Protein backbone atom coordinates (compact mmCIF):
# COMPACT_ATOMS: atom_id res chain seq x y z
CA UNK A 1 0.00 0.00 0.00
CA UNK A 2 1.37 3.44 -0.74
CA UNK A 3 -0.03 6.72 0.44
CA UNK A 4 0.00 8.24 -3.05
CA UNK A 5 -2.34 5.59 -4.30
CA UNK A 6 -4.72 6.09 -1.39
CA UNK A 7 -4.59 9.83 -2.02
CA UNK A 8 -5.49 9.21 -5.64
CA UNK A 9 -8.58 7.24 -4.60
CA UNK A 10 -9.54 9.97 -2.14
CA UNK A 11 -9.08 12.72 -4.74
CA UNK A 12 -11.26 10.85 -7.19
CA UNK A 13 -14.12 11.39 -4.74
CA UNK A 14 -13.49 15.09 -4.06
CA UNK A 15 -12.03 14.28 -0.66
CA UNK A 16 -14.98 15.41 1.46
CA UNK A 17 -16.28 13.68 4.57
CA UNK A 18 -19.54 12.63 2.93
CA UNK A 19 -17.68 10.59 0.33
CA UNK A 20 -16.31 8.28 3.03
CA UNK A 21 -18.18 5.18 1.89
CA UNK A 22 -17.21 5.72 -1.76
CA UNK A 23 -13.56 6.12 -0.78
CA UNK A 24 -13.66 2.97 1.34
CA UNK A 25 -15.28 1.04 -1.52
CA UNK A 26 -12.53 2.27 -3.84
CA UNK A 27 -9.82 1.05 -1.48
CA UNK A 28 -11.61 -2.24 -0.87
CA UNK A 29 -11.92 -3.02 -4.57
CA UNK A 30 -8.29 -2.21 -5.26
CA UNK A 31 -6.74 -4.01 -2.30
CA UNK A 32 -9.47 -6.54 -1.46
CA UNK A 33 -9.35 -5.23 2.10
CA UNK A 34 -8.97 -2.04 4.14
CA UNK A 35 -5.45 -1.80 5.56
CA UNK A 36 -5.19 0.17 8.78
CA UNK A 37 -2.67 2.63 7.37
CA UNK A 38 -5.10 3.38 4.54
CA UNK A 39 -7.90 4.06 7.02
CA UNK A 40 -5.65 6.40 8.99
CA UNK A 41 -4.86 8.30 5.82
CA UNK A 42 -8.54 8.51 4.93
CA UNK A 43 -9.36 9.83 8.41
CA UNK A 44 -6.66 12.46 8.15
CA UNK A 45 -7.64 13.63 4.66
CA UNK A 46 -11.43 13.55 5.08
CA UNK A 47 -11.33 14.78 8.68
CA UNK A 48 -13.40 11.85 9.89
CA UNK A 49 -12.61 10.32 13.30
CA UNK A 50 -11.38 6.71 13.35
CA UNK A 51 -14.34 5.67 15.51
CA UNK A 52 -16.70 6.57 12.67
CA UNK A 53 -14.56 4.90 9.99
CA UNK A 54 -14.42 1.77 12.11
CA UNK A 55 -18.18 1.82 12.56
CA UNK A 56 -18.81 1.98 8.83
CA UNK A 57 -16.07 -0.47 7.91
CA UNK A 58 -17.53 -3.07 10.26
CA UNK A 59 -21.17 -2.31 9.43
CA UNK A 60 -21.17 -3.24 5.75
CA UNK A 61 -20.29 -6.72 4.63
CA UNK A 62 -18.64 -5.32 1.51
CA UNK A 63 -15.68 -4.21 3.63
CA UNK A 64 -13.01 -6.41 5.12
CA UNK A 65 -10.51 -5.43 7.80
CA UNK A 66 -8.35 -8.48 7.13
CA UNK A 67 -6.59 -9.33 3.85
CA UNK A 68 -8.63 -11.36 1.39
CA UNK A 69 -7.38 -14.00 -1.04
CA UNK A 70 -6.84 -13.39 -4.74
CA UNK A 71 -9.95 -15.40 -5.52
CA UNK A 72 -13.32 -14.94 -3.84
CA UNK A 73 -15.24 -18.20 -3.64
CA UNK A 74 -18.95 -17.87 -2.85
CA UNK A 75 -20.83 -21.08 -2.24
CA UNK A 76 -24.58 -20.76 -2.48
CA UNK A 77 -26.43 -22.23 0.49
CA UNK A 78 -29.91 -21.10 -0.62
CA UNK A 79 -32.79 -23.56 -0.44
CA UNK A 80 -32.52 -24.84 -4.01
CA UNK A 81 -28.76 -25.31 -3.89
CA UNK A 82 -29.06 -26.77 -0.43
CA UNK A 83 -31.37 -29.58 -1.52
CA UNK A 84 -29.20 -30.17 -4.55
CA UNK A 85 -26.18 -30.89 -2.43
CA UNK A 86 -24.54 -27.57 -1.52
CA UNK A 87 -23.50 -28.84 1.92
CA UNK A 88 -21.45 -31.59 0.26
CA UNK A 89 -19.84 -29.04 -2.08
CA UNK A 90 -19.01 -26.91 0.94
CA UNK A 91 -17.40 -29.87 2.71
CA UNK A 92 -15.35 -30.58 -0.39
CA UNK A 93 -14.25 -26.94 -0.64
CA UNK A 94 -13.24 -27.04 3.00
CA UNK A 95 -11.12 -30.11 2.41
CA UNK A 96 -9.52 -28.75 -0.73
CA UNK A 97 -8.71 -25.29 0.54
CA UNK A 98 -8.28 -26.04 4.21
CA UNK A 99 -10.43 -23.06 5.19
CA UNK A 100 -13.97 -22.50 6.45
CA UNK A 101 -16.44 -19.83 5.37
CA UNK A 102 -15.24 -16.39 6.40
CA UNK A 103 -11.60 -17.41 6.22
CA UNK A 104 -8.66 -16.88 3.87
CA UNK A 105 -5.83 -19.37 3.36
CA UNK A 106 -2.26 -18.56 4.28
CA UNK A 107 -1.07 -18.12 0.70
CA UNK A 108 -3.86 -15.56 0.23
CA UNK A 109 -5.15 -17.60 -2.69
CA UNK A 110 -8.79 -18.21 -1.73
CA UNK A 111 -11.35 -16.55 0.52
CA UNK A 112 -14.38 -18.68 1.20
CA UNK A 113 -17.83 -17.33 1.88
CA UNK A 114 -21.30 -18.85 1.94
CA UNK A 115 -24.14 -16.84 0.44
CA UNK A 116 -27.90 -17.28 0.49
CA UNK A 117 -29.11 -17.48 -3.09
CA UNK A 118 -27.32 -15.94 -6.05
CA UNK A 119 -30.57 -15.96 -8.02
CA UNK A 120 -29.98 -18.77 -10.47
CA UNK A 121 -31.60 -21.67 -8.63
CA UNK A 122 -32.05 -23.77 -11.78
CA UNK A 123 -28.26 -24.05 -11.95
CA UNK A 124 -27.88 -25.36 -8.41
CA UNK A 125 -25.68 -26.23 -6.75
CA UNK A 126 -23.86 -23.05 -7.66
CA UNK A 127 -20.42 -21.76 -6.79
CA UNK A 128 -19.38 -18.29 -7.83
CA UNK A 129 -15.67 -17.54 -8.11
CA UNK A 130 -14.53 -13.98 -8.83
CA UNK A 131 -17.95 -13.21 -10.27
CA UNK A 132 -18.01 -16.22 -12.61
CA UNK A 133 -20.81 -18.69 -11.99
CA UNK A 134 -20.11 -22.42 -11.96
CA UNK A 135 -23.45 -24.23 -12.08
CA UNK A 136 -24.68 -27.80 -11.61
CA UNK A 137 -21.37 -28.83 -10.13
CA UNK A 138 -20.68 -32.14 -8.45
CA UNK A 139 -18.27 -32.82 -5.63
CA UNK A 140 -16.04 -34.65 -8.11
CA UNK A 141 -15.75 -31.54 -10.30
CA UNK A 142 -14.93 -29.19 -7.45
CA UNK A 143 -11.20 -29.85 -7.51
CA UNK A 144 -11.02 -29.30 -11.29
CA UNK A 145 -12.78 -25.99 -10.96
CA UNK A 146 -10.42 -24.76 -8.25
CA UNK A 147 -7.47 -25.87 -10.40
CA UNK A 148 -8.38 -23.16 -12.91
CA UNK A 149 -7.54 -20.48 -10.36
CA UNK A 150 -3.89 -19.83 -9.67
Amino acid at each position, binding site marked *: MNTKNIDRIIDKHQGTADSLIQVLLGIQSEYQWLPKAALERVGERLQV*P*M*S*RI*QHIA*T*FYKAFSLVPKGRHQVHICMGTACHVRGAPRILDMMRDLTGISPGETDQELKFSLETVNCIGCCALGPVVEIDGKVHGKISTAETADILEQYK
Partner: protein
Amino acid sequence: MSKVHLTIDGKKVAAKEGMTILEAAQSVSVSIPTLCHQAKLAPYGGCRLCMVELDMGDWTRFVVSCVYTVEKDLVVTTRSEKLDSVRRNILELLLAHAPDSPKLAELAEEYGADRNRYEQDASFCIHCGLCVRYCAEVVGKHAVGFIDRGIRKEISFIPEIAAKECNECKECFPLCPTSYLQAAFVLAESLVFPKEVSESASKK
Protein backbone atom coordinates in the same frame (compact mmCIF):
# COMPACT_ATOMS: atom_id res chain seq x y z
CA MET B 1 -39.18 34.27 18.57
CA SER B 2 -42.73 33.13 18.06
CA LYS B 3 -44.15 30.61 20.47
CA VAL B 4 -45.75 27.31 19.53
CA HIS B 5 -48.83 26.50 21.57
CA LEU B 6 -49.68 22.90 22.31
CA THR B 7 -51.23 20.77 25.02
CA ILE B 8 -49.34 18.13 26.96
CA ASP B 9 -51.35 15.95 29.33
CA GLY B 10 -54.02 18.64 29.46
CA LYS B 11 -51.54 21.41 30.31
CA LYS B 12 -51.24 24.35 27.95
CA VAL B 13 -47.65 24.85 26.90
CA ALA B 14 -46.05 27.74 25.02
CA ALA B 15 -42.92 26.18 23.59
CA LYS B 16 -40.07 27.73 21.66
CA GLU B 17 -40.01 26.90 17.99
CA GLY B 18 -37.73 23.97 17.24
CA MET B 19 -38.03 22.48 20.72
CA THR B 20 -38.73 18.78 20.97
CA ILE B 21 -41.90 17.52 22.64
CA LEU B 22 -39.70 16.12 25.39
CA GLU B 23 -38.16 19.53 26.12
CA ALA B 24 -41.55 21.19 26.04
CA ALA B 25 -42.88 18.63 28.51
CA GLN B 26 -39.90 19.12 30.80
CA SER B 27 -40.47 22.88 30.75
CA VAL B 28 -43.84 22.36 32.45
CA SER B 29 -42.59 19.53 34.71
CA VAL B 30 -44.30 16.71 32.87
CA SER B 31 -41.92 13.82 33.06
CA ILE B 32 -41.40 11.40 30.20
CA PRO B 33 -39.12 8.40 30.74
CA THR B 34 -35.89 8.42 28.70
CA LEU B 35 -32.82 6.26 28.40
CA CYS B 36 -30.74 7.51 25.50
CA HIS B 37 -31.54 11.20 25.88
CA GLN B 38 -29.03 13.61 27.35
CA ALA B 39 -29.61 17.34 27.37
CA LYS B 40 -26.06 18.11 26.24
CA LEU B 41 -26.24 15.81 23.23
CA ALA B 42 -27.96 16.04 19.88
CA PRO B 43 -31.32 14.20 19.70
CA TYR B 44 -30.76 10.53 18.96
CA GLY B 45 -33.98 8.53 19.25
CA GLY B 46 -32.32 5.21 19.96
CA CYS B 47 -34.30 3.62 22.77
CA ARG B 48 -37.90 4.65 21.90
CA LEU B 49 -38.83 4.71 25.58
CA CYS B 50 -39.90 8.33 25.39
CA MET B 51 -42.67 7.55 22.90
CA VAL B 52 -45.86 9.61 23.33
CA GLU B 53 -49.31 9.75 21.75
CA LEU B 54 -50.56 12.51 19.47
CA ASP B 55 -54.29 12.96 19.19
CA MET B 56 -54.99 13.35 15.48
CA GLY B 57 -58.78 13.55 15.85
CA ASP B 58 -60.04 10.19 14.72
CA TRP B 59 -56.75 8.38 15.15
CA THR B 60 -53.73 8.31 17.41
CA ARG B 61 -50.20 8.72 16.31
CA PHE B 62 -47.16 7.42 18.20
CA VAL B 63 -44.05 9.54 17.98
CA VAL B 64 -40.67 9.61 19.69
CA SER B 65 -40.75 12.72 21.85
CA CYS B 66 -36.99 13.32 22.10
CA VAL B 67 -36.67 13.83 18.35
CA TYR B 68 -40.13 15.12 17.38
CA THR B 69 -40.27 18.89 17.30
CA VAL B 70 -43.30 20.77 18.60
CA GLU B 71 -46.05 21.81 16.23
CA LYS B 72 -48.95 24.19 16.68
CA ASP B 73 -52.01 22.73 18.46
CA LEU B 74 -50.55 19.29 19.09
CA VAL B 75 -52.42 17.33 21.72
CA VAL B 76 -49.90 15.12 23.46
CA THR B 77 -50.53 12.33 25.94
CA THR B 78 -47.48 11.02 27.76
CA ARG B 79 -49.04 8.12 29.61
CA SER B 80 -51.74 5.66 28.57
CA GLU B 81 -52.38 1.95 28.65
CA LYS B 82 -50.94 1.54 25.17
CA LEU B 83 -47.82 3.59 25.97
CA ASP B 84 -47.30 1.65 29.17
CA SER B 85 -47.37 -1.58 27.25
CA VAL B 86 -44.94 -0.27 24.62
CA ARG B 87 -42.56 0.89 27.35
CA ARG B 88 -42.96 -2.34 29.27
CA ASN B 89 -42.01 -4.33 26.19
CA ILE B 90 -38.98 -2.18 25.40
CA LEU B 91 -37.81 -2.54 28.99
CA GLU B 92 -38.30 -6.29 28.96
CA LEU B 93 -36.21 -6.59 25.81
CA LEU B 94 -33.46 -4.43 27.30
CA LEU B 95 -33.57 -6.31 30.60
CA ALA B 96 -32.78 -9.51 28.73
CA HIS B 97 -29.44 -7.87 27.89
CA ALA B 98 -28.74 -5.98 31.09
CA PRO B 99 -30.77 -7.66 33.85
CA ASP B 100 -29.03 -5.88 36.71
CA SER B 101 -28.97 -2.31 35.51
CA PRO B 102 -30.27 -0.10 38.35
CA LYS B 103 -31.72 2.41 35.90
CA LEU B 104 -33.65 -0.32 34.07
CA ALA B 105 -34.77 -1.89 37.33
CA GLU B 106 -36.24 1.41 38.47
CA LEU B 107 -38.16 1.86 35.20
CA ALA B 108 -39.22 -1.78 35.23
CA GLU B 109 -40.79 -1.23 38.62
CA GLU B 110 -42.73 1.76 37.35
CA TYR B 111 -44.02 0.02 34.23
CA GLY B 112 -44.40 -3.49 35.63
CA ALA B 113 -41.81 -5.00 33.31
CA ASP B 114 -40.79 -8.59 33.98
CA ARG B 115 -37.05 -9.01 33.58
CA ASN B 116 -37.45 -12.71 32.89
CA ARG B 117 -39.99 -12.37 30.11
CA TYR B 118 -37.36 -12.91 27.42
CA GLU B 119 -34.56 -15.40 27.61
CA GLN B 120 -31.55 -13.69 29.13
CA ASP B 121 -28.70 -12.95 26.84
CA ALA B 122 -26.51 -10.73 28.92
CA SER B 123 -24.51 -8.57 26.55
CA PHE B 124 -24.81 -5.66 29.01
CA CYS B 125 -24.56 -2.81 26.52
CA ILE B 126 -28.02 -1.61 25.51
CA HIS B 127 -26.75 0.51 22.60
CA CYS B 128 -27.97 3.80 24.02
CA GLY B 129 -24.92 5.43 22.45
CA LEU B 130 -24.45 7.83 25.36
CA CYS B 131 -20.76 7.03 25.74
CA VAL B 132 -20.03 7.22 22.02
CA ARG B 133 -21.96 10.44 21.51
CA TYR B 134 -20.67 12.14 24.65
CA CYS B 135 -17.09 11.45 23.69
CA ALA B 136 -17.68 12.75 20.17
CA GLU B 137 -19.99 15.70 20.85
CA VAL B 138 -18.96 17.03 24.25
CA VAL B 139 -15.37 15.92 24.78
CA GLY B 140 -14.51 15.87 21.09
CA LYS B 141 -12.02 13.01 21.40
CA HIS B 142 -13.81 10.16 19.59
CA ALA B 143 -12.09 7.61 21.79
CA VAL B 144 -14.95 5.14 21.69
CA GLY B 145 -17.23 4.08 18.85
CA PHE B 146 -19.60 1.37 17.77
CA ILE B 147 -18.54 -1.56 15.63
CA ASP B 148 -20.57 -4.15 13.73
CA ARG B 149 -24.35 -4.10 13.58
CA GLY B 150 -27.55 -5.74 14.74
CA ILE B 151 -27.10 -8.22 17.55
CA ARG B 152 -23.34 -8.12 17.14
CA LYS B 153 -23.08 -4.36 17.58
CA GLU B 154 -20.78 -3.35 20.40
CA ILE B 155 -18.65 -0.48 21.61
CA SER B 156 -14.96 -0.42 20.88
CA PHE B 157 -12.25 1.89 22.14
CA ILE B 158 -9.72 3.29 19.69
CA PRO B 159 -6.55 2.22 21.53
CA GLU B 160 -4.31 5.07 20.32
CA ILE B 161 -6.77 7.69 21.54
CA ALA B 162 -8.10 5.91 24.62
CA ALA B 163 -4.59 5.25 25.96
CA LYS B 164 -3.88 8.99 25.93
CA GLU B 165 -7.19 10.53 26.87
CA CYS B 166 -9.44 8.26 28.88
CA ASN B 167 -7.65 8.00 32.19
CA GLU B 168 -7.80 11.75 32.64
CA CYS B 169 -11.45 12.04 31.63
CA LYS B 170 -13.83 9.11 32.22
CA GLU B 171 -16.73 11.57 32.07
CA CYS B 172 -18.82 9.07 30.13
CA PHE B 173 -18.66 6.40 32.84
CA PRO B 174 -21.54 7.68 34.98
CA LEU B 175 -23.74 8.10 31.89
CA CYS B 176 -23.83 4.40 31.09
CA PRO B 177 -27.11 2.83 32.28
CA THR B 178 -25.32 -0.49 32.79
CA SER B 179 -21.79 -1.05 34.03
CA TYR B 180 -20.68 -2.28 30.65
CA LEU B 181 -18.78 0.81 29.65
CA GLN B 182 -16.46 0.64 32.64
CA ALA B 183 -15.96 -3.07 32.19
CA ALA B 184 -15.21 -2.66 28.49
CA PHE B 185 -12.74 0.08 29.26
CA VAL B 186 -10.85 -1.92 31.86
CA LEU B 187 -10.76 -4.90 29.52
CA ALA B 188 -9.55 -2.86 26.55
CA GLU B 189 -6.99 -1.16 28.73
CA SER B 190 -5.54 -4.38 30.07
CA LEU B 191 -5.52 -6.11 26.68
CA VAL B 192 -4.68 -3.41 24.19
CA PHE B 193 -3.03 -0.52 25.96
CA PRO B 194 -1.78 -1.72 29.34
CA LYS B 195 -0.61 0.99 31.65
CA GLU B 196 3.14 0.95 32.19
CA VAL B 197 3.77 -0.74 35.49
CA SER B 198 6.26 1.95 36.45
CA GLU B 199 3.77 4.68 35.64
CA SER B 200 1.07 3.31 37.90
CA ALA B 201 3.66 2.67 40.61
CA SER B 202 4.93 6.23 40.49
CA LYS B 203 1.43 7.61 40.99
CA LYS B 204 1.02 5.81 44.28
